[in-house]
């Protein structure tokens, strides 16, 4: 049974119809001892099915070690949203509620090629010389 209802699917399809560049949804999962892995994979797969510009890829957290290391995956379920470049955008856990909308917005942002940030922010980020990591804790709402 699909996670996304027919009604929501139509809304998402509408939103995704404006995608410009292809976006990859890279999902890391495993079969056992991961309560939300199966649902996260299914959800991401269903999202990917709403547009020809979206590609769903799945890797096993344990056995696909090379990919896990490449994308620096630390726990699962994990989903990386990227285009032809890894931008360091990761979602740990199942994106539900408000965070599901965040995933859709992130897909649109990556596809548009524009971060949408203010000029002042962009200017400052260009001056960075050391890495910045932002962990944002969220809950399903």
């Amino acid at each position, binding site marked *: 049974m699909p996670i996304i209802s027919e009604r929501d699917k139509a809304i998402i399809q509408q939103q995704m119809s404006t995608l410009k560049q292809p976006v990859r949804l890279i999902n890391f999962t495993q079969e056992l001892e991961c309560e939300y892995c199966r649902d996260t994979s299914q959800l991401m797969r269903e999202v990917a099915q709403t547009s020809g510009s979206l590609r769903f890829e799945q890797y096993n957290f344990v056995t696909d070690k090379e990919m896990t290391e490449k994308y620096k995956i630390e726990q699962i379920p994990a989903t990386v949203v990227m285009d032809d470049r890894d931008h360091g955008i990761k979602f740990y856990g199942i994106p539900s509620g408000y965070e599901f909308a965040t995933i859709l917005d992130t897909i649109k942002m990556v596809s548009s090629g524009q*971060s949408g*940030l203010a000029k002042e922010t962009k200017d400052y980020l260009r001056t960075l010389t050391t890495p910045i990591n932002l962990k944002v*804790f969220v809950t399903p709402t």
Partner: protein
Amino acid sequence: MRLAFQMAYESPLVTAEAIEAIEFPHLAIKYNVQGVPRTVINDRIPLEGAYPERAVLDAIKAAVEGAKA
């Protein structure tokens, strides 16, 4: 959350992770999460609640300056 992802997209030096606090209680404890959203910059500097772009930028600037000092 969107802001963190926007910054990661804009800069190759910025990485952003959304973490479902309920699914990863060990991380929620490690980073002292009592309410959400809680942003942690470079594993050290917490930002409680949702902030406008300017405020997050200022916090990042402070983190960078703090690391230099």
